[in-house]
């Protein structure tokens, strides 16, 4: 294998891990509450601005911006849950699309109003020079984002499967009434899920900001990828999102390199539709 | 023979929910399917209605192989059903619910409405025709499902635990309703775990256990069958049953 092709695959894996990272919050909400959060991309956008603010305020890098963005976004997540989502999730699916789409516009253009339309970026020297392995180069921000992406998705998975909080949240998602009879307050668990999901999204956004531009409409660019990743991997499955993210990253990179960048979307969407047709529950979703 | 299942097997992976079951339903009879939870009777039932396609074996209706037909195709041939957990059309009125069934044989809305109103009267929901299906309680919903199925003018009606969740008084009313349906010449297949229902309604009973048929005969025969008592009823229930009360 030529070293360039190897570099293409490495690059694909890195961006794929990032896709997984910013999709895991979406899949959590989707799987646990059966709510499509159309504002997910705008949550990422808010986290990116948070990182930018942290840097302009006191020059803080990811070490400061990641935890701050996680807390800020978790708060926004809980607020969204109590003020909006709690009320629309029992309604028809259309109300959820309508409500979260409205929320997306509200967040996007509030950011627009506050920060202006200009693109912002963090200095590219924030995290030091790229790592060089032979002929393969891995830039530090992406490596950090990819690594933390793996850690966050794995931790989310462990929280869901190995902790009391996780099993309670799953109990609520399986059967809220039964869970209530067992003394679990569904609203608390759902709020916790939103906090967790939005917090993970906060981490994702703060990390993406280190190598991507930030603008009020950046969420749109990212959201579609997140939707496809989540549906591809299986709604609600965090490991599914990880697998799908990595796959999409590599497929995009290799097809863009070998066939042409304009066709990478064609290939990813076609694959996605094929997966839906043959395996509607996604790669790792429950049947 | 109206409806016949031959050597039906339904496997989910390695697990066989129904294992080589053969059951025939005669025209005009009331057949009971019983068995403990997980015995495979619901799976078997769903193979008859077309909700599931068996892994192997065949289903014949009026001599015709319907194994691969969809539920809607079977409904058109005259197989109707109710659901264990009622699946009423929640956004519609009782009348509209029943009209969905009536539309199968009456394509014009007016004719379907007439048919539906007639059936609604028969099942005793007359006063509630305009009420929303959502407003009904469990007995009402079960009755609505039966009305809906009847409006499709079936030859055979399959009732999936139509009495579950009802009070004894409601059960007695429901049994009367089923008898009345039977008198109209509709063949019935009843899945039940309430013995009283089976004993008072069924001409013949087939008992399932772990996916296999373990006994068949009249209700009194199977309730005396050792295998059935051991596998399913348990001694306590058997004693209760012979006492004749519940």
């Amino acid at each position, binding site marked *: 294998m030529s070293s360039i092709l190897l570099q293409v695959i490495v690059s694909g894996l890195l961006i794929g891990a990032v896709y997984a990272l910013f999709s895991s919050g979406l899949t959590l909400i989707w799987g646990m509450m059966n709510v499509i959060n159309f504002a997910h991309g705008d949550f990422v956008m808010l986290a990116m601005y948070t990182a930018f603010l942290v840097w302009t305020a006191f020059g803080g890098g990811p070490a400061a911006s990641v935890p701050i963005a996680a807390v800020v976004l978790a708060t926004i997540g809980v607020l969204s849950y109590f003020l909006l989502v709690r009320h629309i999730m029992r309604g028809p699916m259309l109300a959820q699309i309508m409500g979260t789409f409205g929320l997306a516009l509200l967040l996007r253009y509030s950011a627009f109003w506050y920060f202006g339309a200009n693109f912002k970026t963090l200095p590219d020297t924030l995290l030091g020079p790229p790592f060089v392995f032979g002929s393969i180069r891995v830039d530090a921000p992406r490596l950090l984002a990819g690594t933390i992406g793996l850690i966050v998705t794995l931790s989310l998975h462990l929280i869901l499967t190995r902790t009391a909080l996780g099993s309670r949240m799953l109990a609520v998602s399986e059967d809220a009434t039964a869970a209530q009879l067992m003394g679990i307050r569904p609203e608390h668990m759902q709020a916790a899920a939103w906090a967790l999901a939005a917090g993970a999204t906060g981490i994702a956004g703060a990390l993406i900001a280190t190598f991507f531009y930030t603008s009020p409409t950046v969420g749109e660019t990212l959201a579609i990828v997140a939707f496809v990743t989540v549906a591809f991997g299986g709604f609600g499955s965090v490991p599914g999102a990880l697998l799908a993210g990595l796959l999409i990253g590599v497929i995009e990179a290799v097809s863009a390199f070998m066939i042409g960048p304009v066709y990478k979307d064609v290939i990813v969407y076609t694959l996605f539709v094929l997966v839906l047709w043959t395996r509607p529950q996604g790669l790792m979703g429950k049947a | 023979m109206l409806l016949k299942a031959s050597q039906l097997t339904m496997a989910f992976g390695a697990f066989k929910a129904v294992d080589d079951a053969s059951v025939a339903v005669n025209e005009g009879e009331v057949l009971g399917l019983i068995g403990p939870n997980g015995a495979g009777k619901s799976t078997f039932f769903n193979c008859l209605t077309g909700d599931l396609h068996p892994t192997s074996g065949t289903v014949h209706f009026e001599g015709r192989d319907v194994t691969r037909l969809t539920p809607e195709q079977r409904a058109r041939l005259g197989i109707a059903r109710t659901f264990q957990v009622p699946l009423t059309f929640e956004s519609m009125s009782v009348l509209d619910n029943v009209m969905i069934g009536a*539309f199968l044989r009456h394509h014009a809305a007016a004719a379907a409405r007439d048919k539906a109103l007639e059936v609604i009267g028969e099942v005793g929901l007359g006063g509630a025709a305009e009420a929303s299906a959502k407003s009904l309680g469990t007995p009402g919903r079960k009755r609505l499902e039966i009305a809906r199925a009847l409006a499709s003018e079936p030859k055979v009606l399959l009732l999936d635990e139509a009495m579950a969740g009802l009070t004894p008084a409601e059960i007695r009313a429901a049994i009367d309703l089923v008898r009345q349906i039977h008198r109209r010449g509709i063949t019935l297949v009843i899945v039940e775990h309430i013995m009283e229902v089976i004993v008072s309604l069924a001409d013949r009973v087939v008992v399932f256990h772990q996916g296999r048929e373990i006994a068949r005969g009249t209700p009194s025969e199977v309730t005396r069958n050792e295998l059935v008592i051991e596998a399913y009823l348990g001694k306590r229930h058997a004693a209760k049953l012979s006492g004749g009360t519940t």
Partner: protein
Amino acid sequence: MMRRALPLLIGALALLYPLLVSGSAVYQRLGALVLLSAIGASAWNLIGGYAGQVSVGHAVFFGAGAYAALAGYAQFGMPPIAGAPIGVGVAILVAALIGVPTLRLSGHYFSMATIAVAELVRVLVTNWEWLGGAQGISGPAIPRTVLDLSFTSAVPYYYIFLAVLVSILFMTWRIEKSRMGFYLRAIKDSERAARSLGVAAGRYKLYAYMLSAGLTAVAGALYAIMFGFVDPESGCGILISVKMLIMAALGGAGLLFGPLVGALILVPLEEISNSLLGGKGAGLTFVVYGAIIVVIARFLPSGLLALFTGLRSPRKPSATEPSHAA
């Protein structure tokens, strides 16, 4: 009395609206825009509202109509309106192709599949030179004959759109009252129960999808005729799909007049807030727009019209024929 007077009043208002605002070309045009959006949303309503299959990819059909109208002009010099039937045909055909596999999917999976297919189509159209590729295609900039339907005033558009909308609503009303309408609602509530009663759910969903697609193409063709331009984003972009859905949902999905009510609220809101706030360039238009959508979703999740159907007796519109009034 009131029940009879109200529809008459609304009908008269609809017919006279361009005269009532004759002093303002902008408000005449606003009327036409409301009707155009209502046409699209009503078309979507057939599959998304009545049958409950939430398509987020109707832009494909909208684009088919819009592109057919203008490609017919650009390639063969046809008047755009002549391309409309071709667009409708293409949309129905494409709907059949997309529908057969995707309508098997349920709930969110269907929605996701429609998004993906629509994005796929958008990317393909972007790379399709015959359709103008990324640059899009323009209609006749200067009308050659009246058949080009290129008017300075919005009033002719208003009446064309009104006639189309009334036809679509009449057709929808007929369907609503018929077996198909009942079946679609049954499928929405419980596909499994519907099938057990002999409803060929797959076929009816496909019919509704194809019909909805064809009517959406009409909306697309009318859009292209009025605006005289379409490119991949304005023809097949995801925003087109979402707007149709939001409009129907806001008024009341699955209700005859739901989409129209949604359009009556959202289109003026969009236009007026853009006129008042857009020039300031602070994005306030969309803050207002988003906030209102959120508030309606929060307090009226089934749409504005649910407010009235909830207050009325539980009697369904199905019982309006006097001979059967109980």
